[in-house]
């Protein structure tokens, strides 16, 4: 008899999911986040969830945890006072950035300040050549003096050690770390070759500063959480979700807090992929839309696409290049500044735009009646009848329809000479367009054909917009899983232990031998495997995935080449050119050249077994199930009909497998509503997913 818990801390709510493996039952809970000490809500909520299931915490074998703590600390600049040691001559790398403008027309452009101010950076004498050979040995006395000064004069709590070419030879960074750990044991140390051993100093060092900046806070948080759980009788393992969709044991995660960035959305995408695999849908668009942003991910052959770069805290709305780059393994997400709280306003063209400005949770949309006057997407969805004034959040929060109408009229409709209905439906449609557009370009840049894909839609606002967006994209099928508001918590329950590392090392294919292959991968495999072995994953259950970044010699564009699972280095070495050409042709259909190849990057990922959610999942206590399937009727606007249409409103929790709903109709669950248009047909499957099939 085993139980597992998933906990996801979001900006407003902390979500909980409890899985009873024996019964295949899933129950959920939700409560307000406690920003001053987020572990309070976590411990409290776990207690509530366990209590209502009639369990004791010692029956729970694992808690998987995702949190926005790290993301928020970076965006709100609430991290620790951290110092930095850098190679002499390169203190200013963080201020110089990429020397590139993210917008060539904006003369007032600005870049985010480095997380570690210039005066908290100290230069240390040491220098490696690009091949890792030593030009100047590390000055240990200078290191000691610099750290002493940073501690005594600047009172730093954490230290980032960043030397040039350390990804090729980490000896100097390691030596500096040993000195600091021996002589200043209270200081938390991050070294750049350990954080992400990749070329390009600005990005690697910035990532390292992020790690240092949030580490003291993450340490304290995880310590509080572990001791709190222990005190409540928890004897199982605490797993922390990372950006790439794998979990780490808390003891490992505390060394790499930067890898906790965006772990909640990653868990959501993972759950989409899980649903897809269960339903036999291998190619997916995962679409998550909440209060302030929408997130998208592409799922290919059952797994979300990954990337190795993420931008944090963009200073210019959502413009690429205006944030701080984090180089870590991540699920490759699109972020769109559109959610329920997004503000509709008149842009500089004199037309309507929605977002990225958001009214947030407070004052929130005008219809929350908490003092907000801006017209938001939620206001539009209320005016259109998609949301019910009396059924929002399961009826827990009454919405003020006249306030929504007033806000839209005053800020958009009247100034633009539009009637209220056109303005409201326009706000809804513009958001659909924005999301569809973001998916299109994201897919196009990755050579991903989405037209035969299915979409999995969730989040508070996702199901309101999914069918409209799917039609724009000509996606033939949309899946609405149960529990739109707690998908990330579910995702935590299916996240395997996993750790990935990637290292830059350039080797021409002509110089490659099976021995060199084996030698380069060996330390990566040992390191990643080590994380799982320490978490007591049996060796034979650890899968190792190897990938190489390759390119034509001299070309600036690398292609990631996954290697087949094999220990036969000789066969792998021989197969490389063909493997490269196959991958190259996927992204660059015209571009196969007869030129020499080289390897740029070496990647290894160790993954444990995926926790199972069983075959027939029963979701309980997501909301109060009504007795009647039909809750009532309400007028909702549909562009196809050109007007409001009287629609049935169904209780999602009362729907039975096999039932079919013909649009126009609305299906309400606690945190969201599925909007079904006049010509759409939705079926309830055995797992209570709603599945919409769209006709050409």
């Amino acid at each position, binding site marked *: 008899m085993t139980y597992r818990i998933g906990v996801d801390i979001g900006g407003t709510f902390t979500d909980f999911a409890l899985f009873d493996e024996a019964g295949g039952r899933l129950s959920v809970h939700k409560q307000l986040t406690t920003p001053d000490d987020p572990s309070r809500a976590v411990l409290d909520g776990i207690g509530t969830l366990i209590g209502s299931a009639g369990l004791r915490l010692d029956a729970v074998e694992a808690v998987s945890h995702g949190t926005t703590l790290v993301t928020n600390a970076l965006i709100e600049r609430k991290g620790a006072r951290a110092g930095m040691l850098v190679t002499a*001559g390169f203190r200013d790398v963080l*201020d110089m950035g*990429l020397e*590139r403008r993210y917008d060539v*027309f904006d*003369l007032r452009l600005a870049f985010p300040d480095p997380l570690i101010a210039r005066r908290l950076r100290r230069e240390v004498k040491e220098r490696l050549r690009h091949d890792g050979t030593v030009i100047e040995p590390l000055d240990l006395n200078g290191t000691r003096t610099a750290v002493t000064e940073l501690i005594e004069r600047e009172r730093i709590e954490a230290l980032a050690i960043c030397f040039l070419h350390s990804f090729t030879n980490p000896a100097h960074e390691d030596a500096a770390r040993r000195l600091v750990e021996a002589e200043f044991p209270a200081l938390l140390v991050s070294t750049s070759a350990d954080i992400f051993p990749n070329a390009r100093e600005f990005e690697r060092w910035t990532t390292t500063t992020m790690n240092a900046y949030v580490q003291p806070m993450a340490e304290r948080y995880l310590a509080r959480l572990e001791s709190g759980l222990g005190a409540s009788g928890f004897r199982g393992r605490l797993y922390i979700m990372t950006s790439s969709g794998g979990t780490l044991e808390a003891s490992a995660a505390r060394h790499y807090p930067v890898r906790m960035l965006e772990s909640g959305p990653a868990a959501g995408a993972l759950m989409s992929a899980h649903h897809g695999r269960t339903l036999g849908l291998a190619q997916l668009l995962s679409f998550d839309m909440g209060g302030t942003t929408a997130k998208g991910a592409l799922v290919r052959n059952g797994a979300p696409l990954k990337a190795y770069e993420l931008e944090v805290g963009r200073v210019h709305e959502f413009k690429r290049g205006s944030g701080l780059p984090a180089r870590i393994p991540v699920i490759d997400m699109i972020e769109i500044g559109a959610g329920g709280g997004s503000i509709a306003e008149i842009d500089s063209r004199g037309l*309507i735009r929605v977002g990225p400005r958001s009214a947030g949770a407070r004052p929130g949309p005008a219809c929350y009646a908490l003092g907000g006057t801006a017209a938001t997407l939620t206001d539009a969805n209320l005016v259109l009848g998609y949301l019910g004034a009396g059924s929002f959040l399961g009826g827990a929060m009454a919405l003020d329809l006249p306030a929504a109408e007033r806000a839209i009229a005053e800020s958009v409709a009247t100034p633009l000479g539009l009637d209220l209905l056109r303005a409201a439906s326009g706000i809804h449609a513009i958001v659909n367009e924005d999301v569809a557009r973001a998916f299109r370009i994201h897919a196009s840049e990755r050579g991903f054909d989405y037209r035969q894909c299915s979409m999995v839609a969730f989040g508070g606002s996702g199901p309101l917009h999914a069918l409209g967006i799917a039609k724009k994209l000509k996606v033939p099928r949309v899946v609405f899983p149960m529990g739109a508001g707690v998908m990330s918590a579910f995702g935590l329950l299916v996240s395997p232990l996993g750790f990935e590392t990637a290292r830059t090392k350039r080797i021409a294919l002509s110089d490659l031998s099976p021995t060199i292959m084996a030698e380069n991968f060996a330390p990566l495999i040992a390191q990643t495997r080590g994380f799982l072995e320490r978490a007591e994953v049996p060796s034979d259950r650890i899968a190792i995935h190897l990938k190489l970044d390759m390119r034509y010699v*001299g070309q600036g564009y690398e292609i990631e080449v996954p290697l087949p699972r094999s220990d036969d280095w000789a066969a792998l070495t021989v197969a490389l050119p063909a493997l490269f050409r196959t991958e190259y042709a996927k992204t660059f259909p015209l571009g196969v050249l007869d030129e020499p190849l080289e390897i740029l990057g070496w990647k290894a990922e160790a993954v444990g077994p995926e926790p199972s959610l069983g075959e027939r999942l029963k979701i309980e206590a997501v909301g109060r199930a009504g007795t009647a399937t039909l809750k009532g009727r309400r007028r909702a606007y549909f562009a196809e009909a050109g007007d409001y249409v009287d629609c049935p409103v169904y209780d999602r929790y009362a729907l039975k497998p096999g039932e079919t709903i013909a649009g126009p109709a609305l299906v309400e669950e606690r945190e969201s509503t599925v909007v079904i248009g006049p010509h759409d047909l939705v079926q309830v499957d055995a797992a209570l997913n709603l599945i919409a099939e769209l006709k050409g």
Partner: protein
Amino acid sequence: MAKSTETLDAIGLAIMWDRLVALTDEIVSTLVRTSFSTIVRESYDLTVVVVDAQGRLMAQGSISAPPFIGTAPLTMKHVLKRFPPETLAPGDVIITNDPWQGTGHLFDVNVVRPVFRKGRIAGFTLSITHLPDIGGVGFGASAAEIYHEGLRIPLRKIVSAGVLDESLLDLIRANVRVPEQVIGDVMANLTANEVGGRMLTEFMDEYGQDDLGTLSAAIRGQAERVTRERIRAMRPGRYTNRIEIEGIDAPITLACAVEIAGDGVTIDFTGTGACVPRGINVPYCYTNAMSLYSMKCLTSWDLPNNEGATAPIKVIAPEGCILNAQPPFPTGGRHSTGHFVSPLVFGAMKDAAPDLVQSDTGMIDILNFRGMRRDGGEFSTMWFSAGGFGAVNGHDGPNVTPGPSNMAVVPVEIWEDVTGTLIERKTLLADSAGAGEARGGLGQEVVFRNDTGHPLTVFSMANRTEFPPLGFHEGRDGARRAHMINGGPIHPKGQNVLAPGDRLTLRQPGGGGFGDPKRRKRDKIARDVAEGFVSREAALRDYSVVIADDLGEAAE
């Protein structure tokens, strides 16, 4: 799905406009994915535009090299003159790299394809990419005539009704150094335009548009209205400016008069010096483009690009001046002169639009390094290094930020790996920025050491060595650019050889300041001193502020 006809109100127009821009971005993405050469893929030295049947630019890819916003409409005029609609058939594609009909130098290939719908031309797509080679003397300014600079392809059909002109391809192939990459990039342009045509047709289907004319008029109308409004908010009058820039042998004068009358602007470059027998001459199309780019920064920086935003702006340059070069003057490095159109125009407009213009930027330093690595492998590669960005009223210029071009620096770790040279230091230059109420961005110093064991040839075309980035409205000038070998100054334009062990130092200029330094907020000065961007001495000299040793304490 049912076809609907979008109305062109504030919603329908917003939806279709954004969709069209995104569509051009998708064509760009296709272009990037199908290209061979690194220059397209890494530098995004390219653009894609959608024009209506009359050749009027209505949408452009959001990522675009600045000059390309202005050349496409002129290219379309030449295309339609040479190939009137009745001479075009479905499946035709037109190509040119003529500097006077394209983008000002031979390196950029322009590819145009009509989109037919119901037997009529509904619009065109046009793509431009910088080719990796075009024959001739190669990239640089050393040519004395256009004939030295490589292959010139006049406007002609490279595809006629779907049939590729193999003889033209053969001709190109025989004239360039890296034929596979060049032909690959030409083919990528053909593919991208074909994909673009398909997407445009679907777009018109989806929104119930017969052609692009109505939408084009609405988009351009809206952009023109906003632009004219913003011009009207400027102080009317005739404003002149004259600057000198470093030439090959002697300084070159650039002059302009900007006339703001009502809601229109005329920029006249009369008074500008004559062409020179080196490849730094600028055809009118590029001068026009850089003028429009500069005005866009002042009037429509937040609008997607289209011809409506540029309609109120007229650009005049007398034939034969260096900003309206005629054949056979060479134009390979036309950007090294043409980029100065921005500071020239901003300087002229500093009283007309004091809250919009930018003080001079430090601009970028472009150097070519050629030599041998320690292992004997040859290399030839470019180094880009930015000066400080110019300040704008109330807004400090960011440090080391390029403008008006936008070439990113090569990371130290990549550079050292590729070349085997060592970069000893790369640091911000304290006090290099022009002081001001808003200060300029800091410049930088980069020191290279030739560790390759072989002689290293360095070619540079540096500017801002005699004429510093200017501050506006009592803002101070930024420090000048300097190049040194082993501590001794060298000529900034030309070729030098670094012997093994020699050091090359590049000092990049700071951006110009804006407004009287005496009015700079004290907490900003204190922060600049604390961060080491401004020295205590300079704080006293330029800002008349004493910053005590304890951080943040300031007194007169």
